[in-house]
C-alpha cells in the first residue's frame, strides 16, 4: 500500500529506478518503424506496396490541411455563435453541433457528400448558370474533405466554447468595469487566455483529421487507404499493403504529436515565466 519503495540498503525511498520511468513504449514503436522501413527497402513486395501507396500521401495531407482550415473557420463561428446573445444564432449553432456530434462519421460522409453537396450545388448552379453561364462542381475528394470539415467544425466548436468558458467571469467583469466593451474584452482579455486551453486539443484534432481522411476512401478518393486497398485487392498482398499504409500513418501522427508536445512545452514554459 505504501507509496514508497524499498531500495537496496533496506531503507524506504521515494526515488524510482530509471527503468521504472523509462519510456519503453517509444523504443518499441521506433523498433517497429525501423523494421518496417527496412522491409520496404530490402523486401520487393513491401517496396512495391510503398511505391503504389505513397503517391496517396499528397491527397491525404492536402485533405487534412483543407479540412482543418475549413473546420477552424466553422468552429470559430459555431463556437462563438453558441455564446451569442441572439437567440436565433445561439440555437442554430447549438443545433448544428448537437446534430453532427450525434451522428457517426461514416453515415455523415455519405449524407453530406452524396445528398447535401449535390443538392446545394444544384440549387446554386441553376442561379450561377442563369447569371454567369458557369457551373460550380465539387470533386468527390473535395466533397469528402468538406464533410470532414463540417464534422470537425462541430467538435472544434466545443473546444472553442470550452476554452472561452474556462476563463473566470471575474476577468470579463474586470475588463468591462475598466470601460472596455464586449468586443475589446473578448479580444484583449478572454481570447488570449483561452488560446492556452484551445491550442492543445486543436492539435489533437488535427491529428484526428489526418487519420480520418482514411474515410475518404469510401468515396473513392485516391488517398493512402484507398491506394492500399487497391494494391491489396489487385495483388492479394494484403499484409504488405495494409502494413505499409499503417506505417505511413504512424510516421505522420507520431511526428505530429512530437511537434505538438514541443509546442505545448514551449507554451507552458512561457506560462512559468509569469508565475
Amino acid at each position, binding site marked *: 500500500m505504501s507509496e514508497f519503495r524499498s531500495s537496496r540498503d533496506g531503507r524506504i525511498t521515494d526515488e524510482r529506478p530509471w527503468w521504472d520511468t523509462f519510456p519503453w513504449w517509444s523504443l518499441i514503436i521506433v523498433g517497429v518503424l525501423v523494421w518496417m522501413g527496412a522491409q520496404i527497402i530490402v523486401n520487393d513486395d513491401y517496396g512495391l506496396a510503398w511505391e503504389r501507396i505513397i503517391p496517396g500521401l499528397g491527397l491525404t495531407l492536402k485533405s487534412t490541411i483543407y479540412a482543418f482550415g475549413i473546420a477552424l473557420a466553422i468552429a470559430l463561428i459555431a463556437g462563438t455563435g453558441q455564446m451569442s446573445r441572439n437567440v436565433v444564432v445561439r440555437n442554430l449553432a447549438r443545433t448544428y453541433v448537437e446534430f453532427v456530434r450525434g451522428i457517426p462519421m461514416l453515415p455523415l460522409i455519405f449524407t453530406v457528400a452524396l445528398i447535401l453537396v449535390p443538392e446545394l450545388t444544384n440549387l446554386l448552379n441553376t442561379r450561377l448558370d442563369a447569371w454567369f453561364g458557369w457551373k460550380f462542381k465539387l470533386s468527390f475528394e473535395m466533397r469528402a474533405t468538406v464533410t470532414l470539415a463540417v464534422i470537425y467544425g462541430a467538435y472544434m466548436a466545443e473546444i472553442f466554447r470550452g476554452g472561452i468558458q474556462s476563463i473566470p467571469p471575474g476577468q470579463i467583469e474586470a*475588463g468591462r468595469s475598466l*470601460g472596455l466593451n464586449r468586443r475589446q474584452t473578448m479580444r484583449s482579455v478572454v481570447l488570449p487566455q483561452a488560446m492556452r486551453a484551445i491550442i492543445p486539443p486543436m492539435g489533437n484534432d488535427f491529428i484526428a483529421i489526418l487519420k480520418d481522411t482514411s474515410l475518404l476512401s469510401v468515396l473513392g478518393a485516391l488517398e493512402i487507404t484507398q491506394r492500399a486497398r487497391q494494391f491489396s485487392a489487385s495483388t492479394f498482398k494484403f499484409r504488405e499493403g495494409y502494413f505499409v499504409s499503417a506505417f505511413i500513418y504512424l510516421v505522420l501522427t507520431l511526428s505530429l504529436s512530437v511537434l505538438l508536445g514541443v509546442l505545448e512545452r514551449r507554451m507552458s514554459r512561457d506560462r512559468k515565466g*509569469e508565475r
Partner: protein
Amino acid sequence: MSAASTPAGATPTSGTPMIRLTGVSKTFNRTIHAVRDVDLDVAEGEVVVIVGPSGSGKSTVLRCINLLEVPTTGTVIVDGHTLTNAGTDLDHVRAEVGMVFQQFNLFPHLTVMENITLAQRKVRGRSKAEAEEMGMRQLTRVGIPDKADSFPRQLSGGQQQRVAIARSLAMEPKVMLFDEPTSALDPEMVKEVLDVMLELAGEGMTMVVVTHEMGFAKAAADRLVFIDEGEIVESGPPEEVFSNPSHDRTRAFFAKILY
C-alpha cells in the same frame, strides 16, 4: 429619498450627488431577493463604507452602481448619467467608475504595466508612452514601481491588489468602488492595501467600499451603511453607528464581529 439613506453626518458638497440609487432591487431567478428597494446617495468626495453579514446583498448593491449587476427595478445615476436608461453608453460611464475586486482579477497573461495600460489605450485612446507614464505614476503611488515588468502571478496578494487599484486609478475615475478588497488577502498584507485606500480617501476620491475592516471604516468613512437581508437598515457617521446603533440587527451584527 428615504430617511434611512439620508446621511446624518456627511453634507453633500454639491447639489447633485455623484451616485444616486433610487428604489434599486435585484432579484435572482425571480425568487431570491438579494437587494430590496435600496436608496443611496453618495456625494462627490464622500467615502461610504458598506458593512453587513455575508449574503446580505452588500456586494450586489455595489455591483449595481456600475451595472455589473443589472437591477431588476430602480434607477442608478452616476455623475449625472442614468445608467438604467436603455440608451446610456455604459462603457463610457464605466470608464469613470473604477472597481477593485476581492479576487483582484488582474489579467494573468499581461505584465503589470500591460494590465495598467490596456484600458487607458483602448478606452482613453492614450499613446503607449502616455499610458506607461500614467502607469508608472500610479504604481509609484501604490508603492511598487519596481514591479512594472512582473506578471501578476509573481506578486503577493497585497501587491496584486495594489496593482488592481493602480489599474483603476490610471483611468482617472471619478468614483472608486471596492468589493471586499482585503478579504482574499493573507493577514499581513491587509494593511498595505488599506493604507493605499486611506490615502486615496484623504485625497478626496469618491469611494464606496464593501469591507469587514471596521478599523478602516472608523479611519476613513464619512458614512457607514449597514445592510441586512438586502435592505439598508441603518446609516450614519461610523462612530455613531458603532457606539450607538439604533437597530437590533445592527447591534447583533457588531456584537458578532467586534472582538
